[in-house]
């Protein structure tokens, strides 16, 4: 696994604050639950590592569109943040496994092609798709996880993750506030497809869900709660955000009212 930078957000440290060294709630878990949580957190590590690659694309898109330098710097930092997240999740997984786990196999990143978009618009679509949608959804998922988390270790870990994901989401919203009016106008037609594409990926990416309260208390979410959180994120975060920027979202709202289908045409 690629290591995070010594000159990254926390000066080479994995987290802003040390993680709890002892967590009695982990010792009290059934063996099967510990195994499940190790798998869940290691799966997160793999996803976080891939998102580091996503932010390299976002960083380059911000450069290509001559976005504000501070946003470019923040996106560059996000590349490193996600490497820390991957390691943080691996560390948490190892605590559940009660042994040091190897980093998971690196996942391949497929960049959304957006073939019919002009190159300039495509850059903004990549920024909006990853930051305004994906990281905003991630923030909602983490907040929901945090609300039910009880274990000291996972609570600390989730707070670390959420603090960064909020920054990562803000990259997209701040960029969108700066784009040329023509690009913003063209973007409007893409909001529904972007929402659909990201929801589809969240729904279809293989992951293990919480199946009991013990797992939820350790930061995992059930399939039902995850789905509900995805819809809340679109309804209460993304849609109002775009509308605040004057970008109409009627089609997204219509689709959401129908359950935001992501299968079929």
């Amino acid at each position, binding site marked *: 696994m690629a290591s995070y930078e010594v*000159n990254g957000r926390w000066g080479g440290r994995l987290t*802003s*604050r040390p993680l709890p060294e002892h967590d009695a709630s982990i010792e009290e878990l059934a063996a099967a639950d510990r195994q499940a949580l190790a798998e869940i957190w290691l799966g*997160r590590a793999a996803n976080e590592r891939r*998102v580091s*690659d996503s*932010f*390299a*694309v976002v960083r380059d898109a911000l450069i290509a569109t001559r976005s*504000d*330098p501070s*946003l470019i*710097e923040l996106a560059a930092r996000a*590349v*490193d943040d*996600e*490497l820390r997240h991957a390691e943080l999740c691996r560390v948490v997984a190892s605590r559940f496994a009660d042994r040091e786990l190897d980093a998971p196999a*690196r996942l*391949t990143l*497929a*960049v*959304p*092609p*957006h*073939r*019919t*978009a002009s190159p300039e*618009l495509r850059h903004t679509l990549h920024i909006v798709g990853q930051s305004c*949608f*994906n990281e*905003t*959804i*991630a923030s*909602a*998922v*983490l907040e929901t996880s945090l609300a039910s988390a009880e274990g000291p270790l996972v609570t600390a870990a989730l*707070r670390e993750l*959420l*603090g960064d994901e*909020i920054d990562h989401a*803000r990259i997209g*919203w*701040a960029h969108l*506030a700066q784009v*040329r*009016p023509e690009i913003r106008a063209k973007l*409007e*037609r*893409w909001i529904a*497809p972007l929402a*659909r*594409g990201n929801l*589809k990926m969240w729904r279809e990416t293989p992951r293990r869900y919480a199946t009991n309260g013990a797992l939820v208390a350790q930061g995992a979410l059930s399939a039902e709660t995850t789905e509900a959180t995805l819809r*809340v994120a679109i309804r*209460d*975060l993304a849609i*109002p955000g775009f509308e605040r*920027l*004057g*970008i109409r979202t009627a089609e997204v709202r219509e689709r959401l009212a129908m359950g935001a289908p992501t299968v079929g045409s």
Partner: protein
Amino acid sequence: MATRLFHTVIGVTLSLAGASCSAGDENVPQQAATEDSTATDTAVAEDTAITEVSTEATASVPDSRVAEAGDAVVPADVFTDAPTDADAETGWHPTK
């Protein structure tokens, strides 16, 4: 909960960016979201302060594991800026 998160992620950001609430307004100052270290609602997460940006941050370059699916060799005359069903089939890989 969502209201608080909206304020933290989007509301504060757009305010700091001086975002216009109507499309077509070009009066948008070059101001980034990262300049107010007190902006984040601490109720969202105790540690979610928007801190300074590390100007030393370096980024790893995507390697061969990054698939540039369809980004190349598209004739210019197909740039209709109109989304298709195919565009709705792919999104970014989830973080979690």
